[in-house]
């Protein structure tokens, strides 16, 4: 009996000790938790990385570099916003890269001012839409506006195809967008026989790199400033992407469409019983993703100066999904924000920049990027766990 009493009392003492222990640990731990849970966590992390790296690699501090990195962000941001929408819905769009490639090619076919027969004479469009004297509207003043509209419509249409297949036949988004990705990537290569289409009009190139407001840092000494000293600050891509971001954030948080997206991403059956037009919302979101990919394609094509069938190839998809997820968007749907994605994109661009500054080979950079994504995902898991612990009932 006394043994049992002892055991009971020691258990009691133990429970008392546990009870007096503060729930969330020491103030330092508490501070770390607050930091991890902050909305701006990714931004802080990015700045921390960048500033630390900038101490060791002076080239990073160069204003020219910073201006350059800003310009790198804008196209990626556009396509990542579309992906964020799809992820919030609980879907995934693997076709954004291929959409960028095909829209780039289609735009160039409309706008190109000359086409080299030795490159394109085996293209199925040779002689009809593609001629030695250029694309469909070569030389016309309408070339650029029509070209841009055709690109946007093409992207949106591919998004519609995805959305239609997914909603009408209940197919898995992963498989559908994989199929459209394979198909349109091949289609773009077929149309161009794997060649880049150059000779795009100057006005179009401006959409990719044109300045609106530039900055010169330095004393007012010379009458003419060397071009390389003038730093692009506000460019067309800046305006386009930031505009797109604001509109998207507005759609997401302020409109019926946005609320319905979140509700479908959380529970599609309950949403449809409550009158949410599920199929229509889903289709529109995929269309939006295709549209965003086309916007990104316009900026990239303008920047590199040609229509490139392989534009969205390589590791772009990784950057896009990685940026969204690091920015707090859940792959399971129902969670995400444009702001988070913006931070995620900044993270990725600056990360590449740091790795480049370290003069690593591109392959090592890829490897390091992969590891960083794993780490970021790990941090996200930790955050989610902390939040869940806070909310658990």
């Amino acid at each position, binding site marked *: 009996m006394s043994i049992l009493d002892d055991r009971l009392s020691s258990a009691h003492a133990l429970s008392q000790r546990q009870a007096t222990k503060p729930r969330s640990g020491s103030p330092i731990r508490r501070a770390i938790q607050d930091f991890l849970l902050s909305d701006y966590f990714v931004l802080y992390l990015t700045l921390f990385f960048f500033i630390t790296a900038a101490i060791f690699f002076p080239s990073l501090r160069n204003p020219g570099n910073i201006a350059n990195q800003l310009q790198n962000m804008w196209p990626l941001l556009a396509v990542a916003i579309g992906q964020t929408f799809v992820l919030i819905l609980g879907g995934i769009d693997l076709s954004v890269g291929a959409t960028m490639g095909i829209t780039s090619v289609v735009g160039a076919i409309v706008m190109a001012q000359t086409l080299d027969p030795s490159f394109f004479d085996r293209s199925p469009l040779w002689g009809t839409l593609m001629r030695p004297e250029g694309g469909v509207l070569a030389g016309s003043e309408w070339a650029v506006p029509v070209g841009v509209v055709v690109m946007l419509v093409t992207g949106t249409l591919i998004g519609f195809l995805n959305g239609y*297949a997914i909603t009408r*036949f*209940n*197919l*898995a988004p*992963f*498989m*559908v967008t*994989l*199929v*459209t990705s*394979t*198909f349109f*990537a*091949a*289609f773009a*290569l*077929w149309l161009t*026989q*794997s060649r880049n289409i150059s000779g795009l009009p100057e006005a179009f190139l401006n959409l990719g790199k044109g300045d609106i407001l530039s900055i010169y840092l330095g004393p007012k000494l010379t009458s003419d400033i060397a071009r390389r000293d003038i730093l692009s600050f506000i460019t067309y891509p800046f305006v386009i992407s930031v505009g797109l971001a604001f509109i998207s954030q507005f759609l997401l948080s302020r409109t019926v469409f946005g609320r319905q997206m979140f509700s479908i991403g959380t529970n599609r059956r309950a949403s449809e019983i409550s009158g949410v037009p599920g199929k229509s919302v889903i289709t529109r979101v995929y269309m939006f993703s295709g549209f965003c990919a086309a916007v990104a394609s316009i900026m990239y094509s303008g920047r590199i100066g040609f229509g490139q069938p392989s534009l969205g190839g390589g*590791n772009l998809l*990784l950057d896009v*999904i*990685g940026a969204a*997820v690091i920015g707090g968007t859940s*792959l399971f749907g129902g969670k995400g924000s444009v702001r988070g994605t913006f931070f995620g994109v900044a993270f990725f661009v600056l990360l590449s920049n740091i790795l480049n500054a370290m003069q690593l*080979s591109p*392959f*090592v*950079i*890829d*490897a*390091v*990027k*992969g*590891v960083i*994504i*794993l780490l970021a*995902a*790990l941090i996200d*898991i930790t955050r989610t766990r902390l939040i869940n612990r806070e909310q658990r009932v």
Partner: protein
Amino acid sequence: MQKQPFNVFRFFLNNSTIFLFIAVFIIFGLSSPRTAIGDTGIDFPRFWLPENILNIIKQAAVFAGIIGVGMTFVLLTAGIDLSVGSNMYLSVVCAGLLMRSSGLEIVPALFVSLLVGTLYGAFNAFCIVRLKIIPFMTTLATLVVGRGLGTALTSSQQIDFPERMNAFGQTMVFGVIPMPIVVFVLVVLAAWFILTQTQFGRQVYAVGNDIDVAKKAGINTDRNLAMVYIISGFCAGLAGFVLASQLGGRVDRSFGETREFDAIAAAVLGGTSLFGGVGNVFGTVIGAMLIQMVGIGLQFNLVNLYLQPMARAFIIFLAIFFDSLREANYKKLKRRFIRPVHSASSEARAADAGD
């Protein structure tokens, strides 16, 4: 549990991949160039010649089949492994570099490839099970890491294996069967055995059906999940080595790229669900062969090289399309009938309210 009356549509649907397979086989056969057999004077489609059929199986094995089997394990747990293509590359690069630098023989080199592949899978498993990073993100990241490491190891150069690698690739077992087919058959049989005859295999199905229930039932879900990624990694190491031997021992930096999609497509074509718990390896074999048959058939019909991926995309679309019809039909069948259906025979009569 009542008997269903025979229904042609349903029968077709339930076996859609096999029908698709037969249809593709017949169409490509009829449209392929013909050749006279010996001196019989009969024109026979070259597509149907035994050597071509063996070639299809061989290519199915090395391109999508072996990794498809590994992928089937992963998909059965509702996971995904996007890193198999990179894994194939890294594994074979390690084996190739050792063969060249220290004159490793084929068998030890194969072991190196298997070891690297398995470790690669184990790393995926570690991230997924221990660090709890979701499979999609983990394997997407290791896809990039693996290829980056491989390219860095080779300084982005093509690796030329010693001649014995090529000879190994041309080995005929019993003098008639190409080596990759034998490897494939062994892998498939082993996978079938593991999935149906062992406790681990049945637990893989259980985990895929409902992981929370599996935990409550006392299944070591962590170990099971880890194992499927390790198996997938092992298969990738094996497939990488065998594929390299088929390519004449030349491995460049695009080796294995996008193979993961073929592997997933093969499994899904074979009836494995992306949502876990449903599927078997024989389906994956059919799926892998269908994919390869389409590729070879298009070559036979001299279709523009650029159109082949488009045709392949179309076939995969058909497969998932039929899969969704099948699912919809299955749901309709599962609907509970609570009163006799007037038109149907007494066989179809549902059990009464108390069932």
